[in-house]
């Protein structure tokens, strides 16, 4: 995300266009768009770590999953309302990230990958084995859509789509402000040269730690929405594949751009759900897209755009 006004205008146009087109879309594409919005928040949150701070995490699904489980348990066991669930989900995710960050931030590079992978597996193990709380392998079903006291029901695909769109825009704006702030600038500095930043007197550990917690918190926000969207939470949501998919979205869209990962997320959601309708070999196509991006646009889709326009 840059400060160039062109990008802001572009985002505004896309958002308004999406909002305007939505009422004419059939309900299935609309639910997929909703899914894309929610996953985009996850991808953008990971971008703060991967793209801006240079920390590739393989355990990002953990915070997503912790929040989703918090919502699922609170709504099904205690019939909690949206505000309680939102706060609880985001706070639990932030606490999990704060704890895991203490362990993970010591490491860099491959070691950071391995530690986040291991921590992610710990959460997966809990989801799978703490049956009295998480219902284990069966997952928790029957999460209702949120009721905000508004005149329209979120059970319909259209209102929930608008809700997710608003949430995604809010997340984008907040993350955009963070990465454009002096704090975000020093994160970029750390990405480019950690030792130089240290010599300049920056507390590198603290910066990385805060970036880790912020990324986890926004992943939690995405997880809250996901639980409401799907109505179902299971260990699949916290497993390694989910983390890897988030990484691929960021890589596909272009790391360090915020908008790129959001586009990457949307692209993967649509590829997964549309191409598979036409062919059983859709994984091949997904693979070909990855290879194509790596060969022709190593900095992701956003990177390719950026180069052309500048």
């Amino acid at each position, binding site marked *: 995300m840059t400060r160039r006004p062109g990008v802001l205008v572009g985002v505004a146009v896309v958002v308004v266009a999406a909002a305007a087109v939505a009422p004419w879309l059939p309900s299935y594409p609309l639910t997929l768009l909703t899914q894309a919005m929610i996953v985009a928040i996850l991808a953008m949150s990971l971008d703060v770590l991967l793209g801006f701070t240079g920390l590739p995490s393989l355990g990002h699904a953990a915070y997503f999953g912790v929040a989703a489980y918090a919502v699922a348990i609170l709504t099904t066991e205690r019939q909690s309302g949206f505000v309680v669930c939102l706060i609880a989900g985001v706070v639990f995710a932030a606490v999990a990230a704060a704890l895991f960050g203490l362990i993970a931030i010591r490491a860099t590079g491959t070691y950071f990958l391995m530690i986040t992978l291991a921590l992610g597996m710990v959460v997966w193990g809990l989801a799978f084995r703490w049956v009295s709380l998480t219902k284990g392998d069966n997952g928790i079903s029957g999460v209702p859509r949120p009721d905000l006291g508004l005149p329209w029901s979120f059970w319909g695909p259209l209102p929930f789509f608008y809700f997710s769109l608003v949430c995604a825009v809010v997340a984008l704006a907040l993350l955009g402000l963070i990465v454009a702030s002096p704090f975000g600038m020093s994160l970029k500095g750390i990405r480019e040269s950690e030792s130089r930043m240290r010599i300049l007197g920056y507390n590198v550990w603290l910066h990385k730690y805060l970036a880790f917690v912020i990324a986890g918190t926004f992943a939690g926000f995405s997880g809250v929405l996901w639980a409401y969207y799907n109505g179902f939470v299971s260990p699949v949501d916290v497993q390694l594949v989910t983390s890897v998919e988030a990484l691929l979205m960021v890589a596909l869209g272009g790391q360090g751009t915020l908008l790129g990962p959001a586009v990457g997320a949307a692209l993967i959601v649509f590829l997964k759900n549309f191409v598979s309708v036409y062919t059983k070999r859709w994984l091949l196509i997904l693979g070909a897209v990855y290879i194509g991006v790596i060969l*022709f646009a190593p900095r992701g889709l956003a990177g390719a755009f950026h180069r052309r326009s500048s």
Partner: protein
Amino acid sequence: MSRRTIALFALAAFLLALVAGLGTPTARAQSGPIKIGFLSPLTGAASALGKDMLNGTELYLDEIGRTVAGRKIELIVEDTEGNTQTALTKARKLVDQDHVHILSGGLLASTGYAIHPFAEAQKIPTTYPVMSSDDLTQRKPAKWVVRTGWNSSQSTHALGDWVIKNTKYRKIATVAADYAFGWESVGGFQRTFEEGGGQIIQKVWVPLNTNDFAPFLSQVKRDSDAVFAVFFGKLALQFMKEYENSGLKGRVPLLSNGTTVDESVLPQMGDEALGTISTLHYSAALENPTNQRFAKAFEAKAGKIPSYYAETCYTNARWIAEAIKAVSGKVEDREALLAALRKVELKDFPRGPVKIDTFGNPVQNVYIRKVERVGGKLQNTVFFTYPNVSQFWKYNPEEYLKAPLYTRDYPPCKAC
């Protein structure tokens, strides 16, 4: 204009083509075909089972020329990748975009729990041919879901009873896959076995991602009268081999649930499986004429003997066809179709006579089987039949439902 730009344009064009595909609604008027949406894991680790499920379904639909009550049947198949999130998304696609009249299929228990509220919200008649979690038709039944398969503890209740009445085994160790299906299968066996005077003296739980059984089998108490095992797929194959290698085979007789020696894995086993006594509502070796005909036709189509996954989906397809006949093809009346699905009662499915209880689970025969070699091939020879077994065994449903669901720790292992 670099290669990058070209690649980008190609991608954009591809996406446009996809989006263009969105705008073509597929809803049609009443006279169109009857659409059945079928979820099956066609890629991923469970794809072999998924193919059996699809082959079974297609076999029946082809037998009736894909026509029921004067209307064409259109089967719309979606791949779940053996992943519940994907299954749920595909279920939405089948209902919202394809406007299917009936939703069916699915493999994992979690998929069953996930589709339950969806089917209720959409009011879409749904059948579960495979998913066997007890609570799907016990403590959390769904009005719109009819199970055409079985539930996990249905057949193991019967085995517990059979062991008490026909063997001298009174101290048994269990070795089972550590997840809901394993817990429920073991729970059913333990309940009837202990109520008959037996004792479960040890429960060994094996994680699903296990590659080495040695640490688990070396724990098994050598003075057990028998071992009761619950596995499926690759785990079942590994377990059988290791049971022989660890020296248990020949010393401690082996009992198992149905999936451990199901025909989906049996052809890949060797002599190590011989003599295993198991329990299920089906066996490919059943001698009734419908099954003989079905098994032959399935082998001709798929090139292998039918597993229970194949039979249950064949039966499921016929079940749906019978219900459609009962409403004279008017599947648009969903309430009537649902009522018809719940009324299907036939005496000649390959697995035997089946009717449905008020909770939506089949009441059917449970067979006690033994692995034997006949004509050079392993098969599950049926030697005892419990007729018309309910999911509640012989208990009063209300009393039964007051007890908790079978889990890792329930019933408690008092003699461990």
